[in-house]
Every structure is written in C-alpha cells, then in structure tokens.
C-alpha cells in the first residue's frame, strides 16, 4: 500500500460526492435552526425523498421527475414538522423524532405495497455528470489536468447546486434584509415580532428551505449516487448533518465545509477497505468511523459554539 495509491484525485472527488447529501441537509438545517426551530427530522426527510425520488423515476421513467418527486415529498413532511412546531407549538425534537420513525414506516410500507417486496428497488438511470472533458495526456500537465478535471469538473448537478446553495445562503444570511430578519427570529422572536416581522411565516419558510435541501439530499443519494432505494439507506446521515451544522457554527458555508470532513472520512473508509487485508484494524471500525468522527467533532467543538438563543422554543404571539 503506497501513499500515492491512497491519495488520488479520485479520493477527493469521492469525498465531495459522499459529503453532498450530508452537506445539503446541513446547509438547510442551519437556515432552519437560525430561525429558532430544531430540525432533527432530516434523517426522515432524506429517507422519504430518497424513496419518492426512486419510485417516481421508476414509475415515470424520468430521473428528473424523480428529483421533483423527491423534493415535493420532503416538503410535505417538512410542512408537517412546521405545522407541529410553529402552529401547534409541539416539542420540536419529538415532532422530528415522529417524522423519522414515520419515514422508516412509510417507506417500508410503500416499498411492499408498490413494489411488492421489502429491501431494495430496481435500479434507475442515474443523472450523469454535468461536464465531460477528455482526460489529460502524458506528463506533468496531463497529470495536473487530470487532478483538476477529477476534483473540480467530475460532479453531477445536485453536487454543484449544494456548493452554490452554501455560498448563496451564507451571503443571504448576513447580507440581506431577509437574513437579518431570519436571524432575529432565532435570537429574540419577541423583539422581531414587535418590529413587525411575522415570526410564524419566517419559521415556516425556514423549515421549508430545510425540507427542500433534505429532499435534494435524498435525490442525490439515490438518483445521482446509488441508483436504487434500500430501506433505511440514509443510515444516520441526517444526524451527522446535524453535527456538521453545529461544527459549522450554524453558518451554511461552515456546515458545508464540516460535511466535507465527514465525506472525506467516508471516502477514506471505502478506500482503506480495499486494503483491508493489509491492515489489522477490523472492517467494522472503518464502517463506524463517520459516527466516531461525529462524536469526536462534537466533543471538541460544542463548548465553544453557541446556538441561536431562542432555539427550540415555541413562540406564542401576544397579539
């Protein structure tokens, strides 16, 4: 096993790809939590989106309709969370947990009802990469181009959208009137309300943004990466996204960068499995690596990061 066998441009590209579902959810979550609403439902939203995306793509034959189906399904369940946490003033963690458990049940139920069997669906045509440049030639220049081509130009559309969303939403959060108002909802909703900001509408919108991003995360997972749906396939990514968002200090761009760390751990894990025979460490250790990393990241960072002041508290207007 050589260093150059492991550290290849493909490793970095694979890190970005594997980070994308986590990053999309983390970026959405930072908007949601900035408005003062905890969203632990991303795991479920992603799962529902992954299933709906695959189902729509299989039934219509169009992968892009699948993406739309994934986002719509996630938005519907995000609305449920919004209704519970904004209008009914439920405990947001409990409402999120309910959605996570519902998601497991509904996807399993529909799996058996629509496709007649549990487990995994048939495969769909995955979305191809946006660019298709020829690979480089010989020599140093060719090698350099190979790196750039692989690390920068090898991705599918939703991966690029995730990068765009991270930059755009960071800008919007700090440089627009909308961003200022959104942050005020999470810090001091009463003051925002007094100033004429509609707390309920602002929080609804923020939760829907999170639903939209989680929907894309599910679509990316099935329609761009795996190509089929398996029950429970999100495997904790929604929770890892939550940790990434905290690590990124509730800033969309920060959440994106933190997700890259998890993506890298996963890419490395997959790569090292190939060399499994040469390493004494058991395979399960590598599989557990992203979760271990989450715990380590939280242990190192949480004390220094501060959540929005009004996070998780239902708001009741006095008007």
């Amino acid at each position, binding site marked *: 096993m050589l260093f150059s066998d492991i550290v290849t441009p493909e490793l970095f590209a694979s890190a970005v790809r594997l980070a994308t579902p986590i990053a999309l959810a983390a970026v959405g979550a930072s908007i949601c939590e900035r408005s003062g609403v905890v969203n*632990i439902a991303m795991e479920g939203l992603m799962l529902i989106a992954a299933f709906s995306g695959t189902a729509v793509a299989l039934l219509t034959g169009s992968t892009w309709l699948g993406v739309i189906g994934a986002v719509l399904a996630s938005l519907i369940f995000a609305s449920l969370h919004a209704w*519970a946490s904004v209008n009914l003033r439920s405990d947001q*963690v409990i409402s999120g947990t*309910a959605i996570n458990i519902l998601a*497991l049940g509904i996807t*399993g139920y529909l799996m058996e009802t629509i496709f007649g069997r549990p487990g995994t669906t048939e495969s769909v045509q995955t979305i191809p990469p946006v660019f298709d440049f020829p690979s480089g030639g010989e020599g140093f220049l060719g090698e350099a181009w190979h790196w750039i081509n692989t690390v920068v130009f090898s991705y599918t559309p939703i991966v690029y959208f995730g990068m765009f969303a991270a930059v755009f939403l960071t800008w919007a959060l700090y440089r627009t009137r909308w961003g200022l108002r959104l942050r005020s909802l999470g810090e001091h909703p009463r003051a925002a309300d007094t100033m004429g900001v509609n707390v309920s509408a602002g929080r609804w919108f923020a939760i829907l943004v999170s639903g939209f991003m989680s929907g894309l995360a599910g679509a990316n997972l099935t329609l761009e990466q795996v190509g089929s749906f398996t029950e429970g396939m999100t495997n*904790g990514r929604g929770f890892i996204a939550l940790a990434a968002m905290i690590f990124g200090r509730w800033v969309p761009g920060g959440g994106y960068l933190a997700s890259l760390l998890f993506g890298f751990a996963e890419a490395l894990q997959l790569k090292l499995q190939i060399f499994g025979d040469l390493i004494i460490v058991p395979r399960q250790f590598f599989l557990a690596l992203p*979760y271990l990393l989450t715990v380590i990241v939280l242990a190192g960072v949480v004390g220094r990061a501060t959540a929005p002041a009004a996070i998780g508290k239902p708001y009741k207007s006095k008007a």
Partner: protein
Amino acid sequence: MPDPSDKTIEQIEQEREAAERKNALDQQRIRRAISIATPFISVAIAVIIGSLLMLAAGKDPVAAYAAMFKGSFGGTRQIGETLLRATPLIFTGLAVAYGFRAGLFNIGAEGQLFLGGLAAAFVGVKVAGLPWALSIPLIIVAAALAGAAWAFIPALMKAKIGAHEVITTMMFTYIGRYFVSWIILDHFRAEGAIPQTPMLPETSQLPRISDVFTFVEPNRAHLGLVLGILAAVLVWWILKYTTLGFEARAVGFNPTASETGGISIASTTIKSLCLSGALAGLAGAVEVMGVHFRLFDQFSLGLGFAGIAVALLAKNNPIGVIAAAILFGGLSAGAGTMQLEADVSQKVISIIQGVIIFMVGAETIVTWTVARIRDRKGDADAV
C-alpha cells in the same frame, strides 16, 4: 334588580374570588382531563390514519384490525406472544421515560440495548455451571452495567460541554451496532455459518411463565415480564421517594432553579442518562435470556426506538409504560396475522407508532379539538 346595599363590598369581593377560584379549578380539571385523554385520542387518530393507508392500498382495514386483534389477544398463546413482545418494550420505554423525566432525550436506547444484550450473552455463557439463582442476577447486573457504560460518554459530553444527547446517543447506537457485529463475527461466535454467539446454558435462561405456573396454558411469555413489572415499580419508587429521582425530576423540570437550589446539573445528568442506559441494557438482557438465548446482528429491529413511542404514550409514567408496552406488544404480535390474513404490510405498525408520537407531542391538537367541542356545546346551550 337587587338592592346594592344588600351586599357589603367584602361580600362582593369574596364572591368574585370564589368565582375566580372555581374558574381556575375548572381550567385545571380541563387540563388534567386533556392530559389523560391525549394518549387515547392519539391512538385513535393513529388507527384512523392506518386505516386510510390500507384503504388507499385497496385493503380492508376492518379485516386487518380484526386479524391483528385475533393475533394479539385471541387466545392464551396469542396473549403470551403479546406479553413476550411487550417485555423488552417495558424496559426501553422505562429507559426513555426516565430520561425524559430528567430532561434528557435518550434516542439511543437501541445501542444500549445491543450492548446489554452482548453482555448478557457473554456472561450468560461464561457462568455456565453456576446455579440459576446466581447466574441470572449476575447476567442482569452485567447487562445493566453495559447499557449504562454505553450511555456514559454521551452523558459526560452532555454534562461537561453541552453536546446534545440526541446526536451523541444516536451516534453511539451506530457505533455500538458495528462493535457488536465485530464481536460476534470475529471474537465470540458459535460454530457454524451464521455469525451469532453461542447458546446460553439452561441455567442462564429465563423460564417461561407457563413452565413455572403450570395451570397457565403453554405460551412463550417468560419471567422477563415479571422483571419488567418490578423494574417499572422500582423506577416509580426511585422517582417518587429517592433523592436521585427527586434531583432528576427537578433538573428536568427547571434546571436553573435546581442549580440555585444546590443540585448539580452535571452530576444529575450523568446519573440519569446512565440509569436510562442501564434500563435499555436490561431490555437486551431479557431478549437474550428469555427469547433468543443468544445474540445476533438482527436481534432487535428498533425495540429502542419503539421505547420512545411507549414512553411518550405513557406520558413518562413508569406504571403507564407497562400498559403502553402491552399495546405496542399487541400491535407487533398481531402484525404477522394481519399480513397473513388481510395482506397488509406489517410496516403499518411503525407508521402507527410515528403518528402516535407526533400526536402526543402535539398535545395542542387535542386541546384545540376539545376547545372546539366545548365552544360548540356552549353555543348549543345558548340556543
């Protein structure tokens, strides 16, 4: 028009106060009634939503629920199956409920359960040869310790740096499952192709209730049920009569006030989450000792998560947990019959669970509905 001079100002004041008191008492009674009604209404709504899903799939919900009831309470054997499935849920329900009482959401009971199960399987095999009265307590202690140990790091992280237990206990569930799968694959494995631990000797197994009390018709329910009921009483007693429980409730109710009152939030958090983990570990132990007699990868499919629904439905009341666990045990026991006879996917059970959690969490739905009904009734009275 009565003469105002009939009443002194004091009398008027007193009457007004009495009326206010009565009003406040009424309000309190209504709130209590709603609180008691919520679980029942939640279950009803969940059942209705389940029916709608079955109708949408072209299935007959009445036949499905009838089959489910037959499969869960239709006879001694079925009731035994229901109690068998309720047993681990009593423990995971207690685990989650105790956490909630201390203001902690132990979403990772599933992982603690696996570790408890592993400890039970390991100690259960190692104590072969010891008499029953020694081996069973040893296994129970080991499983409780393993569950508590698996909750300890998340507890420490919550207490010292405020890392949210929902993320950390969830991560520890994944880590725990991979850890267990590594142990039973490479280190503690029975002969044969399937990765599983060796079988427990008979002295480490919990006997069936129908074997102990021979007048009961044979069924699969085992003495773990009795342990579960004892655990529920113990948790109730801890919460009500011990300092440990008082501090947990105080911190769960109002951490700032508790700290001012001299209770250490950090230490209470650690103790409470570890006790919660210990209870979840016991769930793994009863499954190993009473049902499977060994541990394998798929030995729990979400018993820890079902515990959340059980705790919420029971409103975190330890005795209520027993009833809620029996309800979910029944759902789970009847699901097979339902699938067989009415051709409805068993997964409908987790949908019902999810809806129940959602509804109990959104108590305001019930408050709102009750207020609506009262309004309408008030209008009717006026007419």
